[in-house]
């Protein structure tokens, strides 16, 4: 670190540059990012419809109401939890398999990597449209495939309440797995060749090499990837909100924390405008992320990892 900085920081001439270069970013960041974040905590103590001047101070009333709000816990929160855990486990299982395969010397690795990653850069609205068409029960692709291969008995109304969530989860997994796979792959590629070759020469299979050598060594990166997943899973909004056109309020199956909060604040056809209450949800989301980051850090981070 020392060799990459200019020593004697506040020398004449540097101070003005530091201030000049930092000021725009700092000012914008404080006013439009940090300050609103702090304001959230303040607003959550009020009952407020946002556009009127009157804010009723109700202390922790919003939080108390939230604790008792079934539609929040049973629907939004539980869906978000299902996304994080069920979605996360499946996504990472697939990501591990793919990155494990690609980290051995496979032909066309770059091509596969590029193709796997691509769904993550497609506009999520487009992904929602595509997959809701696949799962459509009248003319959807999935049901027509099942017809075609003689499994008509398995045809379902995939967008039924109860099933729609899983359809959404499948499309979410399709969209995101490549991203996490690529991160894991980058980590796996960093494992020194020498270890792998030594094991190979001693007769270990690629599978054993993966499980016993590569995996343990990328523990930190796995931790980072899991953290990223948890953060993104809590923030996930677009896919759920724009599924099936969203003419009115998204159905329960398509409601997660982010969607619920948006509807409470800005509504859809029926606007609710409960800003104080919605802000409370935002705080819960933030708390979930903070707790998750803390737990994941405990599980995955090891300090001395020497190759």
């Amino acid at each position: 670190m020392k060799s990459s900085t200019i020593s004697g920081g506040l020398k004449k001439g540097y101070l003005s540059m530091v201030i000049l270069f930092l000021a725009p970013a700092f000012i914008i960041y404080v006013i439009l990012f940090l300050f609103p974040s702090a304001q959230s905590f303040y607003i959550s103590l009020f009952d407020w419809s946002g556009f009127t001047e009157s804010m009723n101070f109700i202390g922790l009333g919003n939080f108390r109401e939230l604790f008792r709000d079934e539609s929040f816990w049973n629907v939004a929160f539980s869906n978000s939890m299902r996304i994080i855990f069920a979605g996360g486990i499946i996504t990472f299982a697939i990501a591990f398999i793919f990155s494990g395969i690609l980290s051995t010397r496979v032909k066309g690795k770059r091509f596969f990597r590029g193709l796997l990653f691509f769904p993550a850069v497609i506009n999520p609205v487009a992904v929602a449209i595509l997959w809701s068409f696949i799962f459509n029960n009248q003319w959807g692709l999935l049901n027509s495939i099942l017809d075609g291969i003689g499994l008509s008995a398995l045809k379902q109304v995939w967008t039924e309440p109860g099933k729609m969530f899983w359809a959404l989860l499948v499309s979410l997994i399709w969209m995101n797995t490549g991203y996490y796979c690529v991160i894991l792959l980058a980590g796996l590629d960093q494992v020194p060749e020498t270890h792998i070759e030594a094991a190979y020469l001693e007769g270990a299979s690629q599978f054993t090499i993966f499980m016993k050598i590569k995996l343990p060594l990328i523990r930190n990166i796995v931790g980072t990837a899991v953290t990223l997943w948890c953060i993104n899973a809590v923030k996930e909004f677009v896919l759920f909100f724009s599924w099936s056109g969203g003419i009115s309020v998204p159905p329960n199956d398509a409601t997660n924390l982010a969607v619920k909060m948006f509807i409470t604040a800005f509504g859809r056809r029926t606007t609710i405008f409960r800003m104080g209450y919605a802000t409370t949800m935002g705080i819960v989301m933030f708390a979930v992320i903070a707790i998750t980051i803390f737990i994941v850090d405990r599980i995955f981070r090891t300090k001395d990892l020497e190759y």
Partner: protein
Amino acid sequence: MKIVGKITSWLGKIFLYFWCIFSLFSLIWVAISALKTNRELFGNPWGMAEKLQFSNFAKVWSSYNLSQNFYNSVVVVAFSVIFILIICTPASYVLSRVNFRGRGFLSFLFTAGMGIPYQLLLIPLYFIMFRVGLTNTLGGLVIVYVALSIPFTIFLMLGFFRTLPSVLEEAALIDGCTPIQTFFRIMLPLGRPAVITASIFNFLSLWNEFLLALVFTNDDWKFTLSVGLNALQTSMQYTGDWVALFAGIVVVIIPTLIVYLLLSRRIIEGLTLGAVKE
């Protein structure tokens, strides 16, 4: 054990091929369907079009407002990326190269923002913008985009600038350059990879951005592509014009596709740089 291993990796490879073929196929399918008529689509989703219906694209571009949305997206994203670079590059440079008091704290302050979901600050931010009359404007959206992109962009650039050796600055100083001249003449050109990576990343995430655009624009001629596409989907519920909707998807995806085909390696490397560097 060895046989289990062999079967697993064999199955895994098949799964990988299947997954990739599926992804490729679904995209091609959307493109093909965008060239059909609705009757052809519902009659046989797997068939080819009899005559290529480029009219779908014309329709979605003009009468469904998508051209306006496209234009909005281009303008908003271009200005956002430019402003992000203008304010973040000097800041990251100074944070990484000049040893001043409070530097560590400031660096932490900026990058910690990455852990804050923007939902936490969305509502207060909305009302701040509302009070200055910048809601439902594209300019307001640009400002919001810039502010929310600061944490990650600074994080990315900080990591990069730290890797440059300091001998260059010292040499420049000996040669008589002022610190600011040193930045513009030497370090900035060297920092080009970071600038390019940051531009690409911000372009991709802002081009596909939905929630903020939805909140900060209300008139449909101000919508960006994401919101416009969603509005298109909503109206399609009434018109049943799926093929036009698919044409809309193609229009939305094409810029991303072009950028991706040209730059996928750099994109992937840039995105994993932050995650993998320890």
